[in-house]
């Protein structure tokens, strides 16, 4: 364990965003009001975007802010307000035994995987040449040269992702669109 790595400038940046991400993620899990939980998730997404920046993934940090914190969270807030759940009128209270089991299993899983990551091998440090050449890998140019390279497998998957988004748009419109005649099967 090289804890002094956290005292450098990059380490303090990591520490700040990590603490913010964990704290806001905990608020997402425990807050009763859905609106406040959604706003905590926005903070969490911004913190993770900061961590992407510390990993030189500039383009993905931008996409994280625009797509996640922008588009997806607006969709969440829109549905929360549309269904009028902002007052926490849903009975979202915890039940004792299930909560204990859920949190203990989550802590057990996280502890197990963290133990594997920490004890499996000595600390994996950044390779020395990545300091020099890795700076352009996360830029728009670097992403595009890999994503649209026909010799790499990503181009085919990219095309099918556009088809997936088309299917999702049609599905969302069909599911949430206005019915011509309301169905009577209220189950």
């Amino acid at each position, binding site marked *: 364990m090289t804890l*002094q790595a*956290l005292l450098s400038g990059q380490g303090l940046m*990591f520490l700040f965003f990590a603490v913010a991400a964990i704290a806001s993620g905990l608020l997402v899990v425990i807050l009763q009001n859905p609106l406040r939980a959604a706003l905590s998730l926005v903070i*969490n997404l911004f913190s993770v975007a900061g961590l992407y920046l510390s990993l030189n993934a500039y383009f993905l940090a931008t996409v994280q802010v625009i797509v996640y914190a922008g588009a997806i969270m607006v969709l969440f807030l829109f549905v929360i307000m549309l269904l009028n759940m902002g007052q926490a009128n849903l009975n979202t209270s915890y039940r004792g035994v299930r909560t204990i*089991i859920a949190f203990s299993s989550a802590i057990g*899983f996280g502890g197990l995987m963290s133990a594997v*990551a920490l004890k499996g091998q000595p600390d994996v440090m950044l390779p020395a040449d990545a300091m020099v050449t890795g700076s352009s890998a996360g830029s728009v140019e670097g992403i595009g040269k890999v994503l649209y390279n026909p010799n790499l497998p990503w181009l085919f998957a990219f095309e099918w992702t556009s088809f997936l988004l088309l299917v*999702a748009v049609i599905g969302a419109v069909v599911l949430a669109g206005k019915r011509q005649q309301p169905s009577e099967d209220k189950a």
Partner: protein
Amino acid sequence: MSIPLNYYIVLSMILFSLGIAGVTTRRNPILIFMSIELMLNAVNLSLIAFGRYLGDAGGQMLTIFVMAVAAAEVSVGLGILIAIFRTKDNVDVDVLNGLKG
């Protein structure tokens, strides 16, 4: 001195565990969706960290696809939620037992 890869992995595991706790304790479907987003972000973080430390661009590519699939999932899931809310007044996941699951 750079951060060891292990720190990013441990942070990712903590965020993923928070997502697990949220999915298993929440009863509001929207909050379950938010917890799923938390878990997807944790996986994205570990993918980017692995890609950066192993010098492989595939981590960032996979993250792009995870983001696209997450956007599609949220749009369809919230559409289903609105459709459920149109026929029933309650969206508590313990009340929605029409499939007898």
